[in-house]
């Protein structure tokens, strides 16, 4: 038996087989001839084989980065950042790059459809004329004030059109509830800034590029917060300061996010105690920091803070707090950022105010030198920007729907996925007689609509975006089609302009433009070229420059420096409330926006599905991050499937043992759990938003990090797709390492 085949023979035979493969490999060319498809009717400027680049605006999130799209033979091939654009300066994130997959998505709706019965998926194609006539008829027949619009952070040009539309109809103002904006704390932060500085609500600009130390309270600015591309650029400047100065970053967050991972110090703060910690840091500065802090008019605000209490609640020792606070006075330009994670608690506004006041205490608000400035006012008031509505606004609309007071509902977004189940959107929707969706993929909400009027993708439509959150100058980002619409879809802004014509009267008067192009020409005609990056003397020049450059912005930085604010005397910080307290829910749920999938909008694109999460390297599924100690106590191991249950619902997720999280917190990324969002998103993972309690903070925004959950093992296992091994994690688990 041992003499099957001698070693020599094995080598001989192997050589023969190898030669055979090599010989045949030389000649076989399996490639079939390529096909050439010349145009039916060519565009005038197209030269075969030569690329055309169009400057436009990314709409994968609401930041408004400038993009340049390479178009070859009439087809967009590659999206890159626009180097001239003041926000992203030529850079672009993974989501921006993946935008092509929205355009070419195989499950896009190719024409307007009506659905026989909601949820039946029996779609009948409609000609646009018939579809628009039907929508107009329904709006005409609706009771006064019974037409409503629900959306997320829609493009600014659409917001500028539907605003007057619904006003002229005497209908309630459009509700724009956006998960991403809620997780960023956009609205709460703008209101807190407005109140503290005594100005109109506006997002502040945190000048981390020129800072020397940054304390970030849960601001994931290298991942998802406001504009990760712009802040990522600024972060690089912080790290590579002039003359070898390297800025310092301290991240306060219950979970080791990618931003915390690149920070010099990660402080795993107890969720909801950020306000107390900010006040305690301020008090230490006032008492021991000397100089500016002691004499600051803001000092009074901090004097009543309870350092001991803050240390006990937050899990940061008094010594550590003192060390952190006193490190701030050693630097000339400290910046302290109230990040999105604060917005998730019921005391969000107080926490954000406390953190902003800490900047004021250090003299960083006011004057051109300040590290915090306000987003400059829009270039022209005609360029209106979409502002997010609060969760309370969304609930008010849902209550109206439930009461049967809404006859026609226009939906541009996906509330059945976005809103916590506890908000009751599904029940409200069932009471609305006519629902119109604008979704280009049949998403969860579109399945429950009567009529779907699919929108163009952003690569096929006209528009603009007021670059709000991080811009250092009043920039407008222009959006233009880089390709003729692939299918018989229609831009939603065009749909509303068309409806305005059909409805006539006040609505037609408010919106006199026949289409979005004319609307955009009218708007850009108002631009003047005093400091613009290109000469603007006539409206035609403005229109040409707008399309060539991809928007309008001044060449030089313009910072709106706020006046030094009047100091408030007191600040009420309420104890954070957590839904499910004392109800057998031992863990605090910390949902976080996925770097690739965002709030779930990216799930339709396979490139983004495949992009690994930066901390866990996992993709394609939903996992729950559990501290090794907690996991041991629960008796679960990695890749175990567990139920994460709150008082409002439950989801299944795969256990990921993560030393970078507090033992009393479990974290679940957003983005998956779609039941209807195209073939690449369907039936993957679970939607963590379903677990959230319908709680709000003081400003009416969703308190998304204030829900307690329990973990119940199911006894099943499913391997989480990830590209890293688990050596480090296993080591940490074995040695019972506690973060912090």
């Amino acid at each position, binding site marked *: *038996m041992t*003499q*099957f*085949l*001698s070693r020599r*023979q094995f080598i*001989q*035979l192997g050589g*023969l*087989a190898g030669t*055979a493969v090599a*010989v*045949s490999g030389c*000649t*076989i*060319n*399996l490639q*079939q*001839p*390529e*096909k*050439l*498809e*010349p*145009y*039916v*009717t*060519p565009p005038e400027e197209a*030269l*075969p*084989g*030569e690329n055309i680049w169009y400057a436009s605006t990314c709409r994968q999130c609401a930041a408004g980065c400038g993009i340049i799209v390479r178009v070859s033979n009439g087809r967009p091939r590659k999206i890159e950042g626009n180097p001239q654009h003041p926000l992203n300066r030529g850079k672009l994130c993974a989501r921006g790059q993946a935008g092509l997959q929205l355009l070419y998505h195989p499950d896009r709706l190719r024409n307007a459809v009506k659905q026989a019965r909601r949820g039946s998926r029996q779609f009948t194609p409609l000609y646009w004329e018939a579809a628009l006539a039907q929508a107009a008829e329904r709006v005409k027949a609706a009771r006064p004030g019974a037409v409503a619009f629900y959306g997320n952070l829609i493009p600014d040009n659409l917001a500028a059109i539907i605003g007057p539309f619904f006003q002229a109809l005497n209908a309630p103002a459009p509700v724009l509830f956006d998960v991403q904006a809620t997780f960023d704390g956009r609205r709460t932060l703008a209101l807190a800034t407005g109140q503290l500085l005594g100005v109109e609500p506006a997002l502040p600009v945190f000048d981390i590029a020129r800072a020397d130390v940054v304390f970030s309270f849960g601001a994931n600015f290298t991942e998802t917060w406001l504009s990760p591309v712009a802040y990522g650029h600024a972060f690089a400047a912080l790290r590579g300061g002039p003359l070898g100065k390297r800025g310092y970053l301290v991240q306060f967050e219950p979970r080791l996010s990618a931003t915390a991972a690149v920070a010099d110090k990660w402080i795993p703060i107890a969720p909801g105690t950020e306000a107390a910690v900010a006040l305690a840091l301020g008090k230490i500065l006032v008492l021991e920091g000397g100089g500016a802090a002691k004499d600051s008019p803001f000092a009074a605000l901090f004097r009543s803070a309870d350092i001991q209490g803050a240390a006990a609640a937050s899990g940061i020792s008094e010594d550590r707090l003192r060390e952190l606070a006193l490190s701030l006075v050693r630097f000339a330009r400290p910046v302290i950022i109230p990040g999105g994670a604060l917005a998730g608690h019921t005391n969000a506004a107080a926490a954000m105010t406390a953190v902003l006041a800490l900047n004021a205490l250090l003299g960083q608000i006011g004057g051109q030198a300040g590290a915090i400035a306000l987003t400059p006012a829009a270039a022209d008031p005609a360029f209106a920007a979409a502002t997010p509505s609060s969760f309370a606004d969304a609930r008010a609309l849902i209550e109206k729907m439930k009461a049967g007071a809404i006859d026609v509902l226009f939906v541009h977004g996906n509330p059945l996925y976005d809103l916590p189940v506890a908000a009751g959107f599904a029940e409200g929707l069932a009471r609305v007689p006519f629902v119109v969706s604008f979704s280009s993929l049949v998403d969860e909400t579109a399945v429950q609509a009567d009529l779907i009027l699919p929108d163009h993708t952003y690569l096929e439509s006209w528009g603009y975006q007021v670059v709000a959150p991080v811009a250092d100058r009043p920039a407008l980002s222009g959006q233009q089609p880089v390709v003729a619409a692939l299918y018989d879809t229609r831009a939603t802004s065009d749909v509303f302009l068309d409806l305005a014509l059909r409805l006539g009267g006040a609505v037609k008067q408010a919106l006199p433009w026949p289409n979005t192009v004319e609307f955009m020409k009218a708007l850009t005609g108002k631009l003047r070229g005093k400091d613009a990056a290109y000469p603007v003397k006539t409206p035609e020049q403005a229109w040409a420059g707008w399309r060539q450059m991809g928007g309008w912005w001044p060449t030089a930085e313009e910072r709106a420096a706020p006046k030094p604010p009047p100091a408030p005397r007191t600040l009420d910080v309420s104890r954070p409330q957590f839904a499910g307290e004392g109800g057998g829910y031992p863990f605090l749920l910390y949902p976080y926006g996925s770097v690739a999938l965002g709030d779930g909008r990216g799930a339709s694109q396979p490139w983004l599905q495949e992009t690994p999460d930066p901390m866990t390297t996992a993709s394609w599924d939903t996992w729950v991050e559990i501290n090794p100690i907690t996991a041991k106590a629960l008796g679960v191991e990695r890749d175990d499937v567990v139920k994460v249950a709150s008082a409002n619902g439950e989801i299944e997720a795969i256990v990921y043992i993560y030393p970078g999280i507090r033992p009393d917190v479990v974290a679940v990324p957003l983005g998956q759990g779609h039941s209807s969002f195209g073939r690449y998103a369907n039936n993957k993972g679970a939607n963590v938003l379903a677990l959230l309690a319908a709680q709000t903070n003081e400003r009416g925004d969703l308190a998304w990090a204030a829900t307690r959950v329990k973990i119940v093992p199911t006894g099943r296992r499913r391997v989480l797709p990830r590209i890293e091994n688990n050596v480090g994690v296993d080591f940490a688990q074995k040695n019972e390492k506690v973060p912090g």
Partner: protein
Amino acid sequence: MLQSLFRARPTRVWLLLGGAATLIGLAALFAAFWIFIQAPRAQAYAAQPLPFEHSKHVQAGVNCFFCHPGATNGPVAGLPSLAKCMGCHVAITPKDAKDQADIDKLIKQWETGRPIRWVKIFEQPDFVRFNHRPHLAQGVACETCHGNVAEMGYAQVYNLNMGFCLNCHRAQSAEKVTRLIDCATCHY
């Protein structure tokens, strides 16, 4: 099975037999390659979607650049759009019934509004940066590389490999030759 083959005392005979079997196998592989891959490929090149003939167009006095204007000002000559075909063919009187039938096919295609999927004949690998413009600017005639199109049907397959290019590049004047035979001229 395989075990019984090799369990027997391995001798030179077995090895020879094995070698012969491998050779037969290889021959079969080559035969299969010709039958299933190469022949269909040749056929695929011949199978154009419309019975287009260059010869008729050239003989009718149509200049190359009328249909392929990209050659003079860009990297790719390009194929004419359907709109351009129809620009003439709406007005042309066919010679005979076959011509009529062929042109009807074109008109039918035009009415569908969909592009014709021609089979590509002249192909360069992705690592070659060929550009028509400098060649035409130097007065190289189309026929130099594409053959006498005036006598062709659709087109003939030429082997436009590196040797073909270099034969010509080497024959240029001394001050140009250094540049023209530099690798990076075409591969960059």
